[in-house]
């Protein structure tokens, strides 16, 4: 006997995924606009964009990197799995200054930053200001999503005192058998 309603329609799933991808791309765009204005008001001129082909090509040219993250593989991985992800490429005057990637918790009220890499070139025009620029963008996207807390996952030990300083206001959390993170409510 024919059943009119089969459980899962693959085409429908693809359509739903592409619609979610478009919706959250637009929401990230709204967060980028807001963060750009905040940064400018603080004296930081930066262009915030999605991590596109131009950003991936520019990152391929970075030398002297501390980490060997394969951004050209990471972005397709995260696009496939996380339409709500946080991603930003920070540019200034045609120079790619940093890439960052994160995602919101499914149910819990936090947005986590998982990867941040600064262009290691000493001539990076936003050297020393990349963290502020990424946090301003992360915070704007958290506000858009209705999240109340930011998390910086797996921070470099040498940078933890800076995140946890009175100026930044994060606190360190060290869960058993998991990577540490710095958290802050917004």
């Amino acid at each position, binding site marked *: 006997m024919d059943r009119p309603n089969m459980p899962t329609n693959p085409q429908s799933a693809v359509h739903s995924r592409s619609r979610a991808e478009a919706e959250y791309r637009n929401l990230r765009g709204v967060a980028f606009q807001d963060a750009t204005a905040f940064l400018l008001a*603080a*004296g930081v001129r930066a262009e915030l964009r999605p991590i596109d082909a131009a950003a991936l090509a520019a990152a391929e040219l970075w030398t002297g990197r501390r980490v060997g993250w394969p951004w050209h593989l990471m972005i397709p991985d995260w696009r496939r*799995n996380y339409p709500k992800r946080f991603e930003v490429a920070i540019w200034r005057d045609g120079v790619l200054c940093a890439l960052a990637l994160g995602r919101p918790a499914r149910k819990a009220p936090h947005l986590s930053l998982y*990867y941040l890499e600064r262009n290691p070139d000493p001539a990076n025009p936003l050297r*020393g200001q990349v963290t502020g620029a990424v946090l*301003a963008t992360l915070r704007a996207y958290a506000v*858009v999503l209705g*999240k109340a807390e930011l998390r910086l996952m797996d921070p470099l030990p040498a940078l933890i005192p800076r995140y946890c300083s009175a100026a930044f*206001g994060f606190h360190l959390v060290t869960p058993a058998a998991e990577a540490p993170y710095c958290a802050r409510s917004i």
Partner: protein
Amino acid sequence: MRTEHMTVSSSTPDRARYVAPPKPGGRKRPAASDVTPTLEEAKRRLAAAASRPQPWLTPEGLAMFADAPSEDLGPEVYRRPDPE
């Protein structure tokens, strides 16, 4: 003789469409962060949050990483994410 439970296999579409009954006490309203906001709602939220401080954008905050040898964050090696 066939009993009713013998006629239902695990591959029956009806099983795949099973929906749990509502919890006692009625349906809960989803949290704001569980619902995809419209662009207008996103802008409204940002406008409402505009007055909240962003310490990383104060002169003191911006100077915090001025001399940092690195501003990277994350594990040494890339870990592929689990599907959502």
